[in-house]
């Protein structure tokens, strides 16, 4: 299988190089290298968003969890519907705010809206977190799989560097536009391989699989049930809850953690550089909530049940039947990772260069010099991610564990920018501080540090089977609401009102009826699909509550429940996108404003002095 897998990976790399070269040859203005002229191909953004959501879920990780915990873990994939709703809510208004007030990066948008440099620094920190440990951890995982698939022919460290170089060159040559176009193809490949290989595996497999046979989980794990609404567990690492870790609370909080992908700076930047049009609606309703979430809800358990001995064993048996299918399965496991690494490192590097280097260090650079700066920065970013992935995989894994939950802590700040004008700077900063602290201390990063330095903590990871993202967000929101209530008449409210008024004036006329019904249905759906009500699905269809008899469905009741609420979820996303009108963006009615004072692009004195000292020494 090794030569075939190598050939496929080389083809994937050449594809990126080809589009990078074509983009460079077209020769657009140098200033568009970093943002594609804020007018990326609509189709590419449309395809890429679902791919990024899958990358957040993690293809190999998800199948491993479903193979270990059964349908309770598979329930998390229905959280992709929630990601679609969040993307609709946030991207639409952020796109408008970007055009209305000329806020071209997430850091700039949040920083200038709240008039807070600290918030810009927080966003930059998150950008680095996604670009280094998060991407490094994924890169390391992909290389581990590559090493195993090639039977050690490509060692992990060599794989890391080869992949990093293969992803870096297209980004350096073609910039943001070429990267997005290439990753869109990865996304399409992912969307086709997933159902294609599931069907192929089922047709060619020798014995019966899921749902005829149960998923082979360990003793004591309830493979076809959610093990309760909540479990009184100190958390992973301290105690293992009976029946499995994915209680209703764990599922809903994991779905909330998945939203971290939408709030990650690079994904917000993708939304800001997207073109106007109806692409967002198509992407979220039909591709993300429909095709991808459906693929995972329906096909996830089927494919995971065949992977009881791991993806390599299944790839080996598929290779016996059809070599391209075996190599394709490994490609499916890797392509999501490649997509995430390329996207977050490229996006992160561009954002850091724009936010830090071009704004504060070298504010007087011309467009060509700025493009060179971006290229150098991209090279360095890929170098550092490869360095950390090859020599510090454990640190990357620990850092990666907090990336998504910390990103979720931006939710109140983004909501303030997009919908809730009452949310104030003080509230956001207070909520963000407490939220981030709680996330860190309910994930390995804080637990390992604190327990190594001081004393053993009484809780582990995900106490009470609630994901750290929700622990942080609960306190974050409480602080934000309390602080914002206390600062309702603060002077900075004026600028926030100006932006909201301008954005609302720029929105196309839309139907306002049925909002109450929509939000009521949304709450009801959330309660039953992810919330405590999800536990009803354990036996709702196999042991109906209206009769003493039990029904022999032939499939687990929970699976039917998941499919039902996935379909209802698609309906809700459709409502948000097309009835409420969030699936369409238009620049027709936009009247630009200047938010606050014009930005001062001046190198801070201490930085200028430092630079001067370095230059003098060198000369």
């Amino acid at each position, binding site marked *: 299988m090794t030569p075939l897998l190598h050939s*496929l990976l080389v083809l994937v790399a050449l*594809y990126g190089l080809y*589009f990078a070269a*074509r*983009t460079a040859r*077209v020769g*657009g203005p140098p200033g568009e290298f970093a943002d594609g002229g804020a007018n990326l*191909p609509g*189709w*590419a953004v449309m*395809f890429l968003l679902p791919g990024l959501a899958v990358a957040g879920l993690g293809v190999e990780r998800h199948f491993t969890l479903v193979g270990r915990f059964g349908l309770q873990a598979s329930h998390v994939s229905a959280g992709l519907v929630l990601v679609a709703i969040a993307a609709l809510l946030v991207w639409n208004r952020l796109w408008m705010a970007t055009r209305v007030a000329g806020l071209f990066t997430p850091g700039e948008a949040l920083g200038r809206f709240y008039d807070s440099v600290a918030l810009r620094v927080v966003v930059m920190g998150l950008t680095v977190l996604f670009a280094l440990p998060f991407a490094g951890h994924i890169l390391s995982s992909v290389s581990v799989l590559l090493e195993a698939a090639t039977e050690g022919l490509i060692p992990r460290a060599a794989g890391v560097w080869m992949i990093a170089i293969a992803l870096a060159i297209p980004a350096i040559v073609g910039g943001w536009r070429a990267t997005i*176009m290439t990753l*869109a*193809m990865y996304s*399409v*490949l992912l969307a*086709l*391989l997933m159902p*294609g290989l599931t069907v*192929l595996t089922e047709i060619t497999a020798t014995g019966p699989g899921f749902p005829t046979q149960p998923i082979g989980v360990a003793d004591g794990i309830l493979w076809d049930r959610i093990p309760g609404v909540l479990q009184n567990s100190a958390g992973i690492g301290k105690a293992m809850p009976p029946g499995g870790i994915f209680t209703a609370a764990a599922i809903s909080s994991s779905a909330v953690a998945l939203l971290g992908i939408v709030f990650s700076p690079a994904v917000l930047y993708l939304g800001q550089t997207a073109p106007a049009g109806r692409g967002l609606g198509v992407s979220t309703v039909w591709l993300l909530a429909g095709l991808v979430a459906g693929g995972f809800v329906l096909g996830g358990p089927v494919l995971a049940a065949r992977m009881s001995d791991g993806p390599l064993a299944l790839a080996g048996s598929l290779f016996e*039947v*059809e*070599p*391209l*299918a075996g190599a*394709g399965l490994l490609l499916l496991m890797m392509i999501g990772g490649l997509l995430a690494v390329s996207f977050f490192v490229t996006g992160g590097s561009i954002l850091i260069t724009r936010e830090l280097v071009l704004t504060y260090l070298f504010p007087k650079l011309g467009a060509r010099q700025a493009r060179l700066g971006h290229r150098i920065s991209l090279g360095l970013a890929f170098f550092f991610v490869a360095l950390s992935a090859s020599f510090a995989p454990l640190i990357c894994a620990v850092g990666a564990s907090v990336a998504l939950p910390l990103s979720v802590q931006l939710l109140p700040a983004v909501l303030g920018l997009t919908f809730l004008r009452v949310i104030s700077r003080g509230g956001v900063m207070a909520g963000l501080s407490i939220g981030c602290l709680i996330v860190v201390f309910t994930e390995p990063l804080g637990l390992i540090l604190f327990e190594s330095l001081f004393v053993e903590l009484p809780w582990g990871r995900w106490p009470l089977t609630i994901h750290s993202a929700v622990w942080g967000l609960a306190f974050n929101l409480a602080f934000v609401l309390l602080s914002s209530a206390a600062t309702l008449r603060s002077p900075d409210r004026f600028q926030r009102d100006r932006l909201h008024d301008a954005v609302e004036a720029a929105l196309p006329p839309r139907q306002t009826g049925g909002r109450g019904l929509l939000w009521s249905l949304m709450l009801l759906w959330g309660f039953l699909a992810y919330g405590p009500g999800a536990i009803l699905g354990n036996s709702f269809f196999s042991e109906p509550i209206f009769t003493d008899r039990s029904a022999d469905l032939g499939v687990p009741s929970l699976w039917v429940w998941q499919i039902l609420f996935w379909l209802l979820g698609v309906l809700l996303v459709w409502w948000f996108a097309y009835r409420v009108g969030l699936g369409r963006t238009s620049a027709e009615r936009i009247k630009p404003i200047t938010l606050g004072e014009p930005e001062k692009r001046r190198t801070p004195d201490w930085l200028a002095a430092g630079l001067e000292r370095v230059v003098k020494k060198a000369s």
Partner: protein
Amino acid sequence: MIENNLFDRLDRHGLVMAIWSPAAFLAAALLHKGVTAGGGAWWIGAGFGVLILGFAGHVIVNAVLKTRFTAGETALGLVTFAVGIVALLVTVLVAPSETVERVVLPVGLGLVSLVMAVIAYLVIAFGPRGAFERFDVIRDNNLRPASRLPHRGGRR
């Protein structure tokens, strides 16, 4: 879409490639499974089905972006089709009779289905007369001025 804009053309090319690259991979896997031992007509049919879906995707792209197949795309399609026919003929001449019996009919039908798909596209896109006119080179050779008159069918 403005065809002269280089970025628009590149964007369209990217979209077409994003559709065809995964589709070609899937079709190759299915066709390979179909023609090798242990395969069969259904696999070959599925492979051609994926190719027709890819073609349908390409047609939708053209419709949405208000473009047509480029000369390069048409040439690549024709060459690939010709290679398929030559491969089929070589198989008939060279391969063992068992392979020929198993492969020729489904592959032949698959190639015919591709032609039918192209004809269906042409008829839907240009109408029966317009589709015919695209290949009607004889009329273009009529240099008399009267041939330009609409009631004589002139279109130049």
